[in-house]
């Protein structure tokens, strides 16, 4: 096992102490960056091959470059700390255990793309993360890492923190912007993309907490070092949130070359004694199921794609035979019906009808044609919804059906 990188400080430093952070490499990356040109920093992130850890795996350097190239000002840097995907709790560990890292990464990002203002959008339920971040921001400001003329340079940048109010959809980047702007949290039709018209209609860089947490390490140790970890298509360390039927649920750091089995049976200590894997939900409610036979699959995007499973946010929920899988599907269906913002028809209506049908199937009382109804809703939501919520709302349910993990009752 390699030494943790993203979790290196977590649990080892006092998250409220700037001195502790500085003693563990803290803000050295920023000092280094301020001596380079912004383009060089963007180049470095591109060369690292870093891909977004918020779920979509978008190449981070490409995004940074797109924002850096925008002539319009002001530009914004937004840290997506809404973390609401069921089974996902890695950002929370970083925010609570290493809050200065997010601050440092945002300043670096601001310098690289030419932004002067940053926002952190924190999930409303994350009280401790919010207090730690607020403290980190004000302490960093007092120490000259934020504000005007950072560390005596020409660069000025400051951070504001905003809290969510409990809507899953507000983690979607454009709904998040609407929410910061004080509007109803509903996604926007893209294009235009955030890089061109994001927060307040201005060019905006938005990245996940874990994505940002990689940045100072890339600056300190270099893109080549970063690429040595993980797989060619997904370099760097990755955090996995293992929950459910395991001995040691928690956040684990590993390269994506690790297999599901190594993660579950090795790092997370295996299942409770006497229990066996029934199914593994990978990627949260928006993810898909892996079967016990698929446990030797590495968590690389390519290998996962071959078994029809997204890496997503890195949530790994292990389900043993004590839990009826239809019960899990009921909850997934209810979750999406509850969280749909209602803006576009396929998801507004489809998530609700999907829930009704899954309830009928789970009760063993389907109507003739219910499976075809489910498939039609699934295809329509995936094809025609505005945002990723509707586009993924049928994934888990479809994968359970397709992999034969649940048996479909016959209509009376």
């Amino acid at each position, binding site marked *: 096992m390699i030494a943790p990188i993203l979790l290196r400080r977590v649990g080892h430093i006092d998250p409220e102490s700037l001195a502790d952070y500085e003693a563990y490499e803290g803000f050295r990356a920023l000092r280094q960056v301020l001596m380079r040109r912004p383009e060089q920093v963007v180049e470095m992130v591109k060369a690292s091959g870093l891909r977004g850890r918020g779920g979509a795996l978008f190449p981070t350097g490409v995004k940074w470059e797109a924002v850096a190239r925008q002539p319009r000002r002001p530009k914004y840097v937004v840290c997506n700390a809404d973390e609401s995907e069921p089974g996902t709790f890695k950002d929370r560990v970083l925010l609570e255990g290493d809050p200065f890292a997010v601050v440092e990464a945002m300043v670096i990002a601001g310098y690289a793309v030419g932004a002067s203002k940053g926002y952190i959008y924190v999930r409303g339920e994350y009280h401790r993360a919010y207090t730690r971040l607020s403290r980190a921001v004000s302490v960093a400001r007092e120490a000259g890492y934020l504000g005007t003329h950072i560390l005596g340079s020409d660069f000025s940048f400051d951070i504001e923190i905003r809290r969510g109010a409990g*809507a899953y959809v507000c983690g979607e980047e454009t709904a998040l912007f609407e929410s910061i702007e004080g509007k*109803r949290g509903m996604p926007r*039709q893209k294009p235009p993309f955030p890089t061109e018209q994001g927060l307040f209609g201005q060019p905006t860089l938005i990245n996940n907490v874990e994505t940002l947490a990689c940045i100072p390490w890339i600056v300190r140790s270099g893109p080549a070092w970063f690429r040595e970890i993980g797989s060619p298509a997904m370099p760097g360390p990755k955090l996995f949130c293992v929950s459910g039927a395991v001995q040691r649920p928690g956040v684990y750091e590993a390269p994506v070359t690790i297999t599901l089995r190594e993660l579950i049976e090795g790092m997370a200590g295996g299942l409770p004694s006497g229990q066996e894997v029934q199914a593994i939900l990978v990627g949260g409610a928006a993810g898909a199921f892996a079967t016990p036979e698929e446990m030797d699959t590495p968590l690389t995007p390519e290998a996962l794609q071959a078994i029809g499973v997204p890496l997503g946010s890195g949530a790994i929920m292990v389900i043993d035979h004590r839990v009826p899988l239809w019960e899990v599907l009921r909850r997934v269906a209810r979750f999406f*019906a*509850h*969280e*749909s*913002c*209602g*803006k*576009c*028809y*396929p*998801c*507004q*209506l*489809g*998530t*609700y*009808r999907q829930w*009704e049908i899954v309830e009928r199937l789970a009760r063993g009382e389907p*109507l003739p*044609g219910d499976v075809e*109804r489910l498939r*039609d*809703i699934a*295809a*329509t939501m*995936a*094809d*025609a*919804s*505005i945002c990723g919520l509707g*586009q993924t709302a049928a994934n888990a349910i479809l994968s359970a059906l397709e992999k034969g993990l649940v048996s479909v009752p016959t209509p009376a």
Partner: protein
Amino acid sequence: MKDQITLTIDGQTVRATPDATIMEVADAMGLSIPRLCYHPHLTPNTVCRLCVVEWEGARTLVPACVARVREGAVIHTASPRVQRARRVILELLASTVDLSESPTLLAYAQAWGADLRRFEAGARRQFPLYDDNPFYVRDYNKCVLCWRCVQTCADDLQYTYALTLGGRGFHSHITTAFNRPMPETTCVFCGNCVAVCPTGALKGKVAFLVQQGTPVPVALWRARPPR
């Protein structure tokens, strides 16, 4: 004159200006792309998704009312994926909303082979009739949530902001602040919302009374001075 670009729609090669939407180009070609939330005088909100078309190479279908054409694009306005999406959206709508006064939607349902009773086992959205002012009634059982009334009342036209969205997901609905009766809101009874409503959810009071077979109360016309 902007530079012309060339693209393919339903197998035909067409030239267009790069700022044109797929819908504009398709309309000029005489193709019939269905639409509901689109209104030429309102900001596009892309909520209905009836206008989606297949753009070769794109992961999802794209809404023709806002997607702009591009050089070399290959677009299908009625591929099997497109047909399924339209059909299912119409089926879902019909199971939720009373479409009896939406002739255009009923014609679309016919055209795209939607079975209007396919999801009828599901819950419908149900609302009381809001008959709270002398000018118009609001029957949200007929509302498809096209947002036209909200936008017309707000910064697309009237700058009055009396109407808004309430609820979420399936339970989304049009409402007023704290669901107050219309006379207690900022409404100035301009009637613009009634004019843009495509489903009969908003209806002039006289039209409503005539439809109900109720005699129009004298007060509604006597109140005016003689001409």
